[in-house]
């Protein structure tokens, strides 16, 4: 199996100087930019904490995916990771599951899957809590209103 970084790696941002070096390298090569340079910059962006950087990173990764078929399998993982960081769990799951389909033994991808599941579940719980809270509140208010109406009648 090719070496892939674990999701934890994506959570450790580069400092701005390092990112600038990658950007400079990427910009220097202009239109004829090589895959590796593009990936380096994209990966640096995905690792970043700012959302715009992450967006750009995912965009570059999808470009690599489109242009170099021999890198697609790897890119699947990075696309999943990038979308996971962006909170686009639907996309992340789509890419990651596709990869797991091809490589069921991929530890990194398996790790990412459980991370996505956890995140979705967590936020889902929160969502349910909010929704149920709202519903309870609505019920209480509705009840009070009904009771008031009943009294009036």
């Amino acid at each position, binding site marked *: 199996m*090719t070496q892939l970084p674990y999701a934890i790696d994506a959570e450790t941002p580069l400092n701005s100087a390092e990112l600038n070096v990658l950007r400079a390298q990427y910009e220097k090569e202009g239109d004829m930019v090589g895959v590796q340079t593009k990936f380096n910059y994209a990966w640096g962006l995905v690792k970043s904490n700012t959302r715009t950087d992450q967006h750009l990173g995912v965009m570059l990764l999808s470009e690599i995916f489109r242009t170099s078929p021999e890198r697609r399998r790897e890119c699947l993982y990075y696309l999943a990771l990038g979308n996971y960081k962006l909170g686009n769990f639907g996309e992340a799951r789509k890419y990651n599951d596709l990869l797991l389909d091809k490589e069921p033994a991929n530890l990194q991808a398996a790790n990412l899957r459980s991370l996505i599941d956890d995140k979705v*579940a967590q*936020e889902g719980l929160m969502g349910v809590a909010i929704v149920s809270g709202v519903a309870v509140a609505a019920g209480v208010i509705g009840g009070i209103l009904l009771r008031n109406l009943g009294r009036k009648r």
Partner: protein
Amino acid sequence: MASSSQNDYPDVLSSNEDDSVISTRGLEAFGRKVTTTASHLMGPLADPSSHPHYQSAMSEVQKQLRRPNLQRSMFSMARTTPTDLVRSKLSTREIQSRALSYVPDDMLQNIPENDNSYSLFQGFQATFPELTDEGKKHRRRVSRGRKLLEETPIQPGSPHAVQKLKKEKSSMIHQFEMLGVRKNMASSEIREIDNKMANLAGMRKIILDRLANLEQEEALLEHDIIEVEGRLEDAQELAEEAESIAMQTPTKSEHDVGGEDSPGFMSQSIYEKLPSASSTPSKPKKPRNIRRKSMPILHEHFQPGTMIRSMRAHQDSITALDFDAPFGLMVSAAMDDSVRVFDLNAGRCIGMLEGHTASVRALQVEDNFLATGSMDATIRLWDLSKAHYDPQGSQFGRDDEDDGMAFENPDDQPVDPPAGSMADCPLFTLQAHLDEITALHFRDNVLVSGSADKTLRQWDLEKGRCVQTLDVMWASAQASAMSAGDSTWRQTTRSTDASADFVGALQVFESALACGTADGMVRLWDLRSGQVHRSLVGHTGPVTCLQFDDVHLVTGSLDRSIRIWDLRTGSIYDAYAYENSVTSMMFDSRRIVSAAGEDVVKVYDKVEGRHWDCGAGIAEAEEGKTPAIVERVRIRDGYMVEGRRDGVVGVWTC
């Protein structure tokens, strides 16, 4: 998203998963675990608690039932979180970036096996420390550490040393691996660049073809324009004449309509009979200005040293050739006493110029104006725009006409062009020299000629008369008288001198005239005084060719050298030599090309300071052929034409 869910889950139930409120996945997994556990329990093997399968199965069951999995099973019907859903539907920026990073499904289907020698992440790891300063420091530190380690005495017994060595070893192995990755990266990058270059070369070829087509169309259209302009002029002339006739004879107007063009024709035929010079300068000037509005640029995009065309122009050695512009008209003369005009664009002979009674030794083409100097001691002037030639003939009559006309194959016999196509070209003849003309040059209305009678003559083309005769021997005698025999006429020591032309080369610019002679001297004359005002001494053999621009004068000689003189100081600026005598030389803004007794043209690139060879000798040497020696060479704007001893003319870019 829902549409692609079939691919996402390999499970059988996956397609239903979105619809089911409570996921069956967890339940099913749990059920699987229970059945396996049960089968193990019921199996004949004793002591289930110690059985590894039982252990693992039970632990998995437990894990499944732990909290996150409970949640998972509860909420996995949600493929994503509410926030994500809200974002993806409402925020324009999010939608935009999603659109940009969208990967079409058919690409997702088409994922090849991974056979790269290194992963992108490995590449990242390998390059990243290299890019940042920190990494460089780290590398240095490592190497220094290694040195330090070698310096410190190692106690073999201490565990500390072992630890350190192990650490060192692992870091070195890591570095080694990284180096391997970097090596792979570099080679794959080179491959990538090769691919890109191949693509670009393909694109360049396509565009070059397009350019060639455009140029062809442009040339044809230009020819049409010229033709229409000519007809317009004629029509206007006729109309004017008709008007004037009508004014003179108002009563007979009706009768004269039929004979209207006869006065025009008459005047034209009279004009054609006129050998006088007075009418010539004004007449050829008109088409001269119309010609070549467009600048051919195609040859500039070829690789230097590419052959554009090769054709057998003559059966004998080429003695002189010149052309007006890239892809324009070329005139060549050979020992077989013929002078031929070629269309370089189509590569075919337009016609033969007849009149000289001996072979032509010197000629020059400027716009449509041609001057030829012959061994019969006369100079003839021609107007090439009067040739009856239709460049479109190559288009329309390709089937029947072209096979016989074009010389695509250099070994083809030269085919005679239609007789009389050049009948209107001769303008007039200059006769005054007593011996063969060996060099001539003209600019504007001044023509200078050098002859074996040891004189130079200056001609006024406006009047068609010789206006000055310069005696070289007299000038050299004058010079020797003044400066005590230092620069007298002296026979050079070379044995080839007998065959060398007395006047090897000439060039005129307004009142300045440069001439190179068989004594190896280059004399600069002032035509206003008729005196030599400077002599350039240096060549040890007869000067055969010469050209100057505003700064430099370049000369070539049978002493095998090319010398570049500084015109302001009169001193040598640069010089270089070849294996054999230089017979012909010309320069343009960038290169000096010379024919030096080889089957290739010697090119000196002034900008890069580089010498290289261009010509048939390079490619054909590999095929075992030996092309003839290049005798004459001309260049204009990187478009080079060379004439060889076997009568073949080659056209090259350089």
